[in-house]
């Protein structure tokens, strides 16, 4: 349903992608890890390689957890489906869109 208003009520989103230029907002949700109370939100270039995203953004955040293992195995999800990140592929090419939530879960042996 639409809002009821006096006159036209139509405003652009204050978080729309164009406000971030060539970048976009990306969330990383470390599932099964209660150390982090909520998913993280990053501003990352669409053209950022996964390896850079991992080493420059995710690891510095996640390693604040004393139990985090940057070399560990993680299962990834995007849009409700498994995601297989490749180091030399950009976020955009991996299918990551503005404000997407990337799921991350430690794989236990």
């Amino acid at each position, binding site marked *: 349903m*639409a*809002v*009821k208003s006096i006159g036209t009520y139509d405003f652009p*989103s*204050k978080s729309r992608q164009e406000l971030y230029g060539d970048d976009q907002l990306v969330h990383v949700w470390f599932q099964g890890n209660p*150390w*982090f*109370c909520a998913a993280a939100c990053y501003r990352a270039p669409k053209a950022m390689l996964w390896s850079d995203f991992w080493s420059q953004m995710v690891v510095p955040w996640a390693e604040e957890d004393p139990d985090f293992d940057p070399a560990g195995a993680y299962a990834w999800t995007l849009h409700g489906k498994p995601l297989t990140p490749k180091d030399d592929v950009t976020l955009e090419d991996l299918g990551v869109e503005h404000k997407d*939530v990337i799921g991350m879960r430690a794989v236990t042996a």
Partner: protein
Amino acid sequence: MTIAPKAPRAPKKLSMKQRYQVLTRDLDWEPSYVDPKEVFPHTDFEGIIIHDWAKWEDPFRLTVDAYCKYQAEKDKRLYAVLDGFAQGQGHLTLTDAAYLNSMKLFLQGVTPLEYQAHRNFAYLARHLNGPGPRFASLCQSIDELRHTQTEIHTLSNYNKYYSGFHNYQQMHDRVWYLSVPKSFFDDALSAGPFEFLIAIGFSFEYLLTNLLFVPFMSGASFNGDLPTMTFGFSAQSDESRHMTLGLEAIKFLLEQDEANVPIVQAWIDKWFWRGYRVTALIAQMLDYMLPRKVMSWKEAFELYFEEQMLKGLFADLAFYGIKPPRHVDDAIAEKEILSHQVYWTLYQFSHAAAFTTSVPTEDHMKWLSETYPETFDKHYKAMWDKEQENIANGGRHFVRGLPQLCQVCQVPMLFTEPGDPTTICQRESEFKGEKFQTCSNGCQWIFEREPEKYVQAWLPVHQIYQGNCGGPTVPDVLEWYGIQDGDNGEHLGSVDDRNWQDWHAGSAPEGD
């Protein structure tokens, strides 16, 4: 007591009801030189139908002279307490400097809301068609200004000695966790007059008021904060009038036309959940921030909400076809986990906040285990144990990054799936090709009802990334927030903690 009134003159006296009628309600007339509709241009667009404004009942029947007399007396008493407390260095008799974290949160988060209420009840005092509700709104408007100012004046004394109070207005406009209460009230102020009446007059001032304020004030009383207790109870005495206005408002709308019922129901559904999310800050305050506990969040919720509102109020409103708020079951299901999740979040983000946090002490954890036998040991104790070990190894859990926020309530997305306290609840909606995440079924429902509204939300995290908050680094943002050293982070060893220890050094406590 010097304000005992004279006995009524025996002959020819109008009753309180007649007098009120004559002095307040009879002042209106039907305009003929201008279009009456143009005098009240805002009461049509929301779809509410009012047939007869004269049916509004106002049980308080207060006139301006009586109002001024009693309010002046209340303030005389209150300011005497404030002055005495300040002169006697009363702040030294608080249970601990850490207690004031709850009051910092109050000044930063709640006082500006009182002010917002003041301004918008003035709007109702202008824009409602009936003189009865206009006068009640005007009284409430200046009451809310009273609350704003008595809160500032009460906490002003603490500002002189403690961190975190000094820049509360600017913080309310800028800081991430304060966008939760700010956006809540902005949502109400940007709504039409009837929705505001239900949002604030009814949902906030009646449905949730006891849950919000009474625990705060009892907490103050239990922790040696006489001024806060005094202003709180003094404000609450006005609040009882506001509750009456809220309840009268809903009954009036429901009785005026059956077509109003579904509109009002949707507003109750929306505003219960909006308000409930704001009370998350109260939940953690009760269970974690008060050095001496009054009651747990769970007890407060059961008493003030489940017992008084669900069993009392909603049974009454069922007569009109009103059902308990949508998503109320999700709120009930959260009562044993909410405070733990919220405090854990504030704890790990307190480096970017204007209050301090600490790991609960051993005694405190024991209390939490006993108070929350089903949840604390099972889900939360292990995290604190891990954090204690982390601290022993030289760490302190401060998140190095920014959290994902809910598009509606703006709380970091920390809440969990109904029935599963281990999985964060993530909801996503799309509007005009853009994704919007919400923290719960309640917030998602609210978003999807009025997406045009919520896409405008000024989400602090997104704004920081747009470069609108002072700069790209955390210190830049903190400077823009006006946060000074000592306002934020770990409480133990903080400026307030060190001062507190110094001030009490050498004065061995004599009994407790």
